[in-house]
C-alpha cells in the first residue's frame, strides 16, 4: 500500500482486472470445479466488507474489532426498511448504507481519539452493545430469530426492472455493486485523503504538527468503513433473505479480522480479497472433509501470524504498487 505518490495510479491495475475477470465469469465455471454460484455471492459480499474494514486496519492502522456490528446494522436496516418503509431495492440498500454510516459516525465519536489497544477494546465493547440490542429488542429485531422472509425487490432502473429472484440475477447485481466498491476504494486509498490516513497511521503526532485534523480523519474513516460494512450487510440480507444477530457477534467480527490478516491487508490493498477467498474455500473444501475445519483454519492463521505477518500478499509479493 506504500508507493511513491508521484507515480500515476492506474484506474484499474492488473490484480483488479484479474479479480473482475474471475468473478465476471464465475457462474460459468464454478460448478465444473465442484462448487456453486451462490458461493461467489457470499465471497463478493465479504470482500466488500473486508475491503471496507481494511480501510481502517491496513490504511489507517485502526484495529476495529467489533466491525460485524455495522454489517449487522446494515442487514437489519435493509430488512426493516423493506417491512416498514417501502420494498424498493435502492431505498433498502440506501438505508443499509446509511444505517451503517450512522452507527459508525456515532461510535466514531467515542473511539477516534484513541489508537492501538484502547481503540480495539472500545470497538469490541461497542460491537457487543449492538449485538446485545439486536438480541434483546424483540419488538423490532425479533430477537434470536432475527428478521425472516426478507424479499428480494426488483432492481428497478426506471426504464427496465430486473427481478433478482433467480440466483443468476442476484449474482449479476452483487457483482455490479462489488465492482463499483472495489473501484471506489482503490481510488480512495490512493487519493490525498487515503495518503493522509496512511500518514496518520505511520505517525499521528507528526500529522498533527503538519496541520491535519487527525481526529476528523480517523472519525471519517471509521464512518466510511462502517457505511461500506452496512452496504455489505444490506447485500447479505438481500442474498440470504434474512438478518439475524449472529452476523453481529464477536466471532463474526473476528472473522473479518482474520481474513484481512491472513490475506495480507497490512501490506497490500488486495490482501482482504485473498483472505476472503481463502476463508470460503477452506470452509467449503476443508469443511467437506471434516467438521473441525475451523481448527485447521485457525492453525493456518496462527502459522501466518507467527511466520509471515505480511500474510498471503506478502508471500506472493502481490503489492498494490512496488515499494519505492
Amino acid at each position, binding site marked *: 500500500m506504500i508507493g*511513491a505518490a*508521484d507515480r500515476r495510479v492506474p484506474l484499474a491495475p492488473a490484480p483488479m482486472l484479474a479479480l473482475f475477470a474471475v468473478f465476471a465469469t464465475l457462474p460459468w465455471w464454478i460448478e465444473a470445479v465442484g462448487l456453486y454460484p451462490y458461493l461467489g455471492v457470499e465471497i463478493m459480499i465479504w470482500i466488500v466488507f473486508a475491503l471496507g474494514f481494511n480501510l481502517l486496519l491496513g490504511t489507517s492502522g485502526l484495529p476495529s474489532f467489533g466491525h460485524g456490528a455495522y454489517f449487522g446494522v446494515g442487514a437489519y436496516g435493509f430488512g426493516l426498511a423493506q417491512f416498514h418503509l417501502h420494498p424498493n431495492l435502492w431505498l433498502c440498500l440506501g438505508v443499509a448504507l446509511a444505517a451503517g454510516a450512522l452507527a459508525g459516525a456515532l461510535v466514531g465519536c467515542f473511539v477516534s481519539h484513541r489508537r492501538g489497544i484502547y481503540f480495539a477494546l472500545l470497538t469490541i465493547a461497542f460491537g457487543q452493545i449492538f449485538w446485545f440490542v439486536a438480541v434483546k429488542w424483540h419488538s423490532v429485531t425479533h430477537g434470536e430469530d432475527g428478521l425472516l422472509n426478507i424479499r428480494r425487490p426488483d432492481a428497478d432502473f426506471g426504464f427496465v426492472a430486473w427481478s433478482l429472484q433467480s440466483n443468476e440475477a442476484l449474482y449479476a447485481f452483487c457483482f455490479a455493486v462489488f465492482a463499483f466498491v472495489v473501484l471506489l476504494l482503490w481510488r480512495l486509498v490512493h487519493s490525498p485523503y487515503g495518503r493522509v490516513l496512511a500518514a496518520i497511521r505511520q505517525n499521528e503526532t507528526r500529522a*498533527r*504538527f503538519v496541520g491535519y485534523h487527525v481526529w476528523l480523519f480517523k472519525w471519517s474513516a471509521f464512518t466510511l468503513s462502517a457505511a461500506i460494512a452496512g452496504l455489505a450487510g444490506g447485500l447479505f440480507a438481500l442474498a440470504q433473505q434474512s438478518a439475524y444477530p449472529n452476523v453481529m457477534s464477536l466471532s463474526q467480527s473476528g472473522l473479518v479480522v482474520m481474513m484481512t490478516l491472513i490475506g495480507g491487508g497490512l501490506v497490500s490493498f488486495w490482501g482482504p480479497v485473498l483472505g476472503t477467498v481463502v476463508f470460503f474455500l477452506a470452509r467449503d473444501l476443508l469443511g467437506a472433509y471434516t467438521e473441525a475445519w475451523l481448527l485447521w483454519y485457525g492453525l493456518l492463521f496462527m502459522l501466518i501470524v507467527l511466520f509471515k505477518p505480511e500474510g498471503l500478499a506478502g508471500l506472493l509479493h502481490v503489492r498494490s504498487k512496488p515499494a519505492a
Partner: protein
Amino acid sequence: MFEASRLHKRFGAQVVLEDVSLRFEAGRLSGIMGPNGAGKTTCFNLLTGRHAPDRGRVTFEGRDITGLPPRAIARLGISRSFQIMNLFDEYSALDNVLVATPGVRTRGFSMLTDLSRARGPLEEAHEVLARVGLGGKAATRARDLSYGDRRALEIGVALAAKPRLLFLDEPTAGLGAQGTARIAGLIGELKRSITLVMIEHDMKFLFGLADHIYVMHWGQVIAEGTPAMLRANPWVQRSNLGQLG
C-alpha cells in the same frame, strides 16, 4: 513577531516552567540553550500547541494563540521539527515532504483524485528535498535513509509546510562533526528567508548561528542576549553550561 509572556507549566507536583517570557523577532535566528531538563523542549511544546500552559500568554503576529491545538498553530504558518525524529517511516522521502505541503493539506479530504496529478505540491516537495540536500534520494523510504539524511528530512518535513516561523528542536542531536556541519550550512541558508527558533546543546554551533539567545535552567530563563553578550555573562560562565571554545 512571536511572544510568550510569563508561561507557567507543571506536570503533577513538578514545576517544569516558571515565569518564562520569550520574544522572537522576525528575520532573526533565536536560540534556546540550557542543560538537560531545563525545560527547553517543554517550552517548545507549549509554544507549538502540544501542551497548553497553566498560565501565561502566547501571541503570534499580535494574535493570541495560547492553548490552540497543534494543527491550528501549524496552519498559521508555524512549523516545528523534533528532537526525537518524527517521520512517516514507510513513506519515501518525497512522500514525507509532500504530505506536509499546504497544497496537499488543503486537499486532505479529496477522496477520489489522484495525488500524482497534483503538479504544484509535487514540484514544491521536490524543491524542499533539493533544499535539504535529499534531491537524489526522493524515492528512498524514510526508514532506509542514513541518520544524517533523516535529520535533514526532519527539517524538510517542517519546511514543506512553508512556515514563516520555524522551531527546530536540537537539529544536530546525535550527529557527528560532518553531519553537524551539513545542518549548520542548511540552517544558515534557511536563516535568510525564515524566522527561526532553535534549541541546541552544541554551543559552538548555536553561538555561530544565533542572533539572540535565551539561557534556561531549572525551568527559568536565567540570561539572554546576543552571543557576544552571553560570552561575557558571569551566569553563563558560572553555570558551566558548555565549552564555548
